[in-house]
Structure formats: structure tokens, C-alpha cells
């Protein structure tokens, strides 16, 4: 797949929960490899529904979702939820090896090697492997949950407000670790968030969702970005820049006008 070919293409996507008003109405979106696309919007505007449709948890009423998986593998989507889905009866290692348990054709040693790489990328030590999820802090649980998704080696990551329940400092470091990893592994991600700062700091593009559509698009370019499509790896540095404030103001002014109607 060449760099300009979209990894994900969504055409005229429609969905409703049985009401007359559509939750998702003729939505169009394309995501290239290496991009982090953020979707902002008021509560209940259908952001999570879009992620659920992409993940196959909901069936569209009409329209198409086309994911051009590079490897052609079955599970090329990873979904990171706001509330982590770690199995409480499994240790961290057991949770991380879920990808191996579901696909025995994977090489166990390779899976373990991959796990070690992700653990060090997210600054988690070896001792954490023998712990149960209940023994971890909120930030550690979310790190483990992200690694659990990455262990499936997905091409596209869907993130539904994954950092919203974390304290500010944990959130900042997790955002940074996540962006660095997405860039290093050349993954793509769609992040749903209420946090404009988070969207500007992490995203390469941001959309405001309203009326079931992606009403407005913002191209985010910060000095700390290394390429146009890569995410802003150094999130904390990016936050201090003039462009950051400019993007923030633009998005906030648009969001304010949409919310106030």
C-alpha cells in the first residue's frame, strides 16, 4: 500500500437507533497510514457510534466502510475504550497474551518479544506482568489496555476518550507515549475526545461532528511535527507553541458556534 492510499475510507455512512433523526448521516472520512484523526463534538452527537460502526460492533443502515488492511489479517482494528476491558481474573501477562490465545498460529516467543517492547515503550516494568488488573493504578491499567490492543498488531486503532478518567500528568505522559509509538510503528488512529487540547496535541487532523456529519475539518500543523502526517510526538512541547494556541482558538470558536446553535 503506498503512503497516499487511504487505509480507511468511509462513504455515505448512515446509522440510526430507530429514531427519525439519524445518529450518523452520510458521513464521509478517509484516514491515511500514520495519521491520528480526532473527532470532537458535543455529548451524544454520535462520535462513539462512528467508532462502533468502524469496529463492526454496529451494522450501518447504509454506506460503506472499507479498511485496506496491509497484511489482510482478520483483526486489523484495535479498540481502546474509556473503561478498560482487562479481564480481572487474568494477570497482566495473561491479558496481554490474549492475542496469542485467540490466534495460536502466532509465534509465542515473538508475541512475548513484542510484549516486552511495548512494556518498555510505555515505561512499565517486569513486575507488572504478574499483577492482576485490580492491583494497578488507573494510568497503568490504561497503559496495559493500550498494549493489549497493540498486541493484535492492528493497522487502525480506535480510541474512545481513553485518557478522560486519568489525572492530568498521567494523561500527558500517556498521550506522548501513545503518539511516539503510533509514529514508530506507522499505525493510524481515530481518537474521539471532548478535550480540544488533547485533539490539537495528538492529532494530525481534527473534525467537529455535528448533525451526524463531520461538519468541519482542521488540519493541524505544529512545529514539533516531523512530517505532515505524523502525530505530534512530543506532546508536551507542542502544547507550548503558538500554533497550538491558534489551532485551539479556531476549534473552540467553531465548536462554540455549533453547540450554541
Amino acid at each position, binding site marked *: 500500500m503506498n503512503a497516499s492510499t487511504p487505509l480507511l475510507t468511509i462513504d455515505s455512512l448512515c446509522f440510526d437507533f430507530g429514531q427519525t433523526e439519524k445518529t450518523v448521516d452520510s458521513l464521509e472520512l478517509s484516514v491515511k497510514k500514520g495519521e491520528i484523526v480526532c473527532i470532537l463534538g458535543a455529548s451524544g452527537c454520535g462520535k462513539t457510534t462512528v467508532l462502533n460502526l468502524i469496529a463492526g460492533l454496529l451494522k450501518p443502515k447504509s454506506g460503506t466502510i472499507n479498511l485496506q488492511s496491509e497484511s489482510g489479517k482478520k483483526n486489523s482494528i484495535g479498540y481502546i475504550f474509556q473503561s478498560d476491558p482487562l*479481564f480481572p481474573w487474568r494477570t497482566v501477562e495473561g491479558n496481554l497474551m490474549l492475542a496469542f490465545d485467540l490466534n495460536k498460529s502466532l509465534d509465542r516467543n515473538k508475541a512475548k518479544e513484542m510484549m516486552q517492547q511495548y512494556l518498555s515503550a510505555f515505561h512499565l516494568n517486569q513486575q507488572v506482568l504478574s499483577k492482576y488488573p*485490580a492491583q494497578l493504578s488507573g494510568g497503568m491499567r490504561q497503559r496495559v489496555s493500550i498494549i493489549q490492543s497493540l498486541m*493484535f498488531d492492528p493497522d487502525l486503532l480506535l480510541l474512545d476518550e481513553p485518557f478522560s478518567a486519568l489525572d492530568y500528568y498521567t494523561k500527558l505522559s500517556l498521550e506522548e507515549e501513545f503518539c511516539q509509538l503510533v509514529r514508530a510503528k506507522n499505525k493510524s488512529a481515530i481518537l474521539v475526545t471532548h478535550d480540544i487540547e488533547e485533539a490539537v496535541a495528538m492529532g494530525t487532523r481534527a473534525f467537529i461532528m455535528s448533525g451526524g456529519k463531520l461538519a468541519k475539518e482542521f488540519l493541524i500543523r505544529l512545529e514539533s511535527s516531523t512530517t505532515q502526517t505524523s502525530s505530534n510526538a512530543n506532546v508536551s512541547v507542542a502544547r507550548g507553541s503558538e500554533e497550538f494556541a491558534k489551532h485551539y482558538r479556531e476549534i473552540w470558536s467553531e465548536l462554540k458556534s455549533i453547540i450554541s446553535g
Partner: protein
Amino acid sequence: MIAFVIVWYFYTFGDKQRQFIFSSPDKVLEALERTIKSGELLLNCQVTITEAVAGFLLGTTIGAIVGLSLWYSRLIAQLSKPYITALATVPIFALAPVIISWFGIDIYSKIALAFLSTVSVAIVQSYQGAMSVEKRFLRLMQVAGATRWQTFKLVVVPSSIIWVLNAMKLNIGLALMGAFIGEFISSEHGLGNMIVKASGLYDQATVFAGVIALIVIALLLTFVIEQIETRLMRWKTS
């Protein structure tokens, strides 16, 4: 408990009539000593434990397998609901004479009664457990492309264990009751047999000795279940 024994002791002390009607703690101790020494109590305990444990294991295992398997099909679960409810509500006392005439007066009829007393609880509890699996776990498996069998094996069964353990705790008492009812109606051995014979002779002390033995067995079996629970639910206590 100690207060009750003290009151019981002084209420019956030196009064033959009261001792005949209510027995007394010292007479119960004497009955315990006598039946232990003669081997009668241990033999009867052994028979009752065998019947109850066999019925308990069969009822809980089959019930748990059926209850968890109902997760596979809501339709079958809905269709089987009235039958499970019927099985759960039929008093075991009403079925006991029929079961004894089918299986005879030896150990098998008591095992069958203990099985019938426990199977419905295990089905209901396990099905509840299977249907209470957190949605976030099921969503994860769906996104990961897991098969229905993988979801059952890796999520539904482990997350329902706590419900199965609860069924086991409830079923200990029920299995003992099933075995006891069978022995009470028709048997050659067992604590139910010992108690019914003693009460026919107005030997209240031996009746109480049998009841105490039943309580001790129930406590011991519950202790075993709690040990299994501690092992299986290590993640919860960690």
C-alpha cells in the same frame, strides 16, 4: 449458642419429664459418645456424606454445564425456562417416594434426590452468571475477531465462576437435605435413618446427636468450598 446451651442445661437439670421431652446437653453428649464408640455415628455419617457429595457433584456439575451452555442460545434458554422453574419449585418431599420406587432403597435413590435438589440451583445461577458478563469484555472479543467458542471459554466461563461457586455454597445444604429426606422416608443407613429410628423410640438425645453430626458435615463441606473459592478467586482477594 453458649447461652442457649446453659439455659437448656438448667431448664432440664434434675427434671426427668423435661429431660424426656427436651433431652439435655449432657445426655446429648452421652449419645454422641455412645454412637461414636459403637461406630454407628461414623457409619451413618459416611453414608450420608457419600450420598450428598455424589448428588452435589452430579447436580452442580451438570447444572453448571447446562446453565452456562444456555448462553449459546437465547431461544433455547427461553424455551427451557418453564421446565427449569418447574424443577426448582417441585418440593423434593413430593418426589421422594417416586424416586425411591424407581431407584430402590439403597444409596442410588438418595443420590438422585440430592441431584434433583441441587441441579436447578446450579442451572439458574450459572445461566445468570453467563448472562451477566460485562459488555466491555464481549466487545473486546468481538473486535478481536474471537469465535463464539473462544468467547465462551475465555470470557463467559471464567467470569461466571463466582456464580457457580455461589451455587455450590447453596447446594451443600440442599444436597444434604435431599439425601436426608431419602433416608428419612426409606433407608437402611445414614443420619436420616438414625434420626427417624431414634425419634420413633423418643430418644431425643440421639436425634440431637444426629442433627449435630449433620451440622458438622455441612460446616466441613462449606469449608472445603470456601477453600476452592479462595484458590479460584485469587484475583479478587489480591
